[in-house]
């Protein structure tokens, strides 16, 4: 008897015109359980902040803002500054975004327009989603043994010919920022592509028809009508991808070289906050743990800001139609 009035026989009477107290109790307690389960999210989030924040207090007290701008990281002398890792986080994520955004949006346009048959479009969309399903650690393995050796001649070429640029002025010897950026591109491309595809698909057909109806060509319609109508969703996806790139750990730590020595060159080993955490947290103790927690706090704040900015941006950019 769970509340739906049930007749006891074909001609019988209703036994539950009045709800029993046990049923009311069940209803109330179910609601209470649902609320408390929802509150778990807040609890977990608060817990994460608390652990990271309390863990980093010692380091915050000792280094303050100096932590952000010095790049010495020395467990022997107990001197810590996260500049290299912060710089690496920002540079790898922003540069990979710069490469991935045109690729992803271009792909999304290609598979939402009627350039190729519908089945081929569906297949490409599926492949993009499967690429997103490949674990970071597998991409890291592939980056170490296949991608980096394959790309190295290209990096050497850049180094030989453009070494006057500070970004290319060290010899590519293996792990470094450049292959980390490329692997990040591969990892965030599916995010950007599938979100851009969904946003483009949501643009009402009537707008597309309006553009074609006044004699616009395909790409005039895309650039002037369809993309602007989808821009809020695409911007949200791009920022989501930026957050992912900042926090991406395994593939980056496997290929970036994990060096805290600052260098402008993309070919020398570098670090990101996430990579540094993965690499050092296991063996760290004492004030190094606190400094790593401080770095984690910075990473969390960065991703949080990107997330909030993303939600604000989506609201700000959405057009009425």
């Amino acid at each position, binding site marked *: 008897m*769970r*509340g*739906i009035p049930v007749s006891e026989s074909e001609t019988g009477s209703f036994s539950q015109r009045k709800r029993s107290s046990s049923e009311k109790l069940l*209803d109330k307690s*179910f*609601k209470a*359980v*649902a*609320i*408390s*389960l*929802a*509150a778990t*999210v*807040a609890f*977990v989030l608060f*817990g*994460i902040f608390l*652990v990271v924040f309390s*863990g980093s207090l010692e380091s915050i007290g000792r280094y303050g803002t100096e932590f952000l701008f010095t790049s010495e990281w020395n467990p022997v002398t107990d001197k810590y500054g996260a500049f290299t890792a912060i710089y690496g986080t920002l540079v790898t994520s922003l540069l990979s975004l710069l490469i991935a955004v*045109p*690729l992803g949006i*271009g*792909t999304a346009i*290609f598979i939402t*327009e009627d*350039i190729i048959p519908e089945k081929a479009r569906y297949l*490409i969309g599926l*492949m993009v*989603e*499967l*690429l997103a*399903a*490949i*674990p*970071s*650690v*597998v991409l*890291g*393995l*592939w980056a170490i*043994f296949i991608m980096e050796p394959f790309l190295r001649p290209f990096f050497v070429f850049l180094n030989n010919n453009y070494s006057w640029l500070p970004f290319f002025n060290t010899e590519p010897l293996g792990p470094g920022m450049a292959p980390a950026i490329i692997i990040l591109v*591969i990892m965030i*491309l599916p995010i950007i592509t599938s979100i851009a595809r969904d946003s483009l698909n949501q643009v009402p057909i009537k707008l597309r028809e309006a553009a074609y109806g006044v004699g616009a*060509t*395909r*790409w005039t319609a895309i650039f002037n009508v369809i993309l602007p109508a989808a821009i809020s969703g695409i911007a949200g996806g791009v920022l989501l991808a930026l957050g992912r790139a*900042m*926090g991406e*750990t*395994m593939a980056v730590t*496997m290929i970036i070289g994990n060096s805290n020595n600052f260098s402008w060159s993309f070919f020398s080993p570098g670090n990101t906050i*996430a990579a540094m*955490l993965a690499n050092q947290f296991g063996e760290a103790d004492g004030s190094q743990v606190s400094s*790593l927690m401080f770095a*984690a706090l910075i990473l*969390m704040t960065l*991703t949080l800001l990107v*997330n909030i900015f993303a*939600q604000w941006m989506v609201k700000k950019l959405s057009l009425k139609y």
Partner: protein
Amino acid sequence: MSNYSIINSRQLNYKNYAVRNILNIFLTIFSGIFTIITVLPLILVLGYILIKGGSQLSISLLTELPEPPGDDMFSGGIGNAIIGSIIVTSIAAVIAVPIGIGGGVYLAEYSRGGTFSKFIRFGTNVLAGVPSIIAGICVYGSIVSSKIIFGANFSALAGGIALAILMLPTVIKTTDEGLKLVPDELRKGAIGLGASQFTTITRITLPAAFTPISTGIVLSLARAAGETAPLIFTALFSFYWSNEPSSLLEPIASLSVLIYNFALEPYQAQNELAWAASFILVFILLIMNIFARLLGRYAPK
């Protein structure tokens, strides 16, 4: 425009050399090239995993224990890592699925857009954006180092909890969105009959939203099973079988951590085992992904 049939015909013809037509073809080709660049990594990664990992497939690979690094000739199998991945992911599911569905039910069925539900929605988004390594560090900081669970430090349970943190927002979101897709008439119909909200939810709306919710859960499980960062400080790794109940309180092997550890070893045999593990892991994840999609496509409406 008199006598305009002839003029017309020419005007309406496609002009190969018009700037806009050249630009259009150029841009179309460009977007096609972009698409190839986007899809190429998947083909290359899958190809190499198939060549370097698939070629090592054997019974002993699936049933034996890995050898500790050092022996250059023989690296053993990945049997315990496969079992370990299944155990840790199952622990995560046992924790995250009920909490997530409960939270999603609250957001979709009970909340009326008040401050609390807005905060929970926002928190879910924020939690979804928390880097996975941070979840690992927090579980380390709160559970592993304090030995709060029966005095165990690195353990399968700790690993499962870390993965559960990552799964939670996805499960909440898919439940919330799945329930919102259920037509309101169904809900009103049940409540109009005098059904309690509990009955309406458990008998009507949740079953109606079964397909999208289960699709979301399978996808989030697939993501969790491939995660490494939350496990390296929580579940750690083990070279032994985890076949007793007490194993849940001990370090446990997993495919992803095995790949990470062995990829960075200088020994070729270990590197090859990493490729073999990648093959198995990717194979399982792709099956899960395709299964989830089929679930969404062919489920009875």
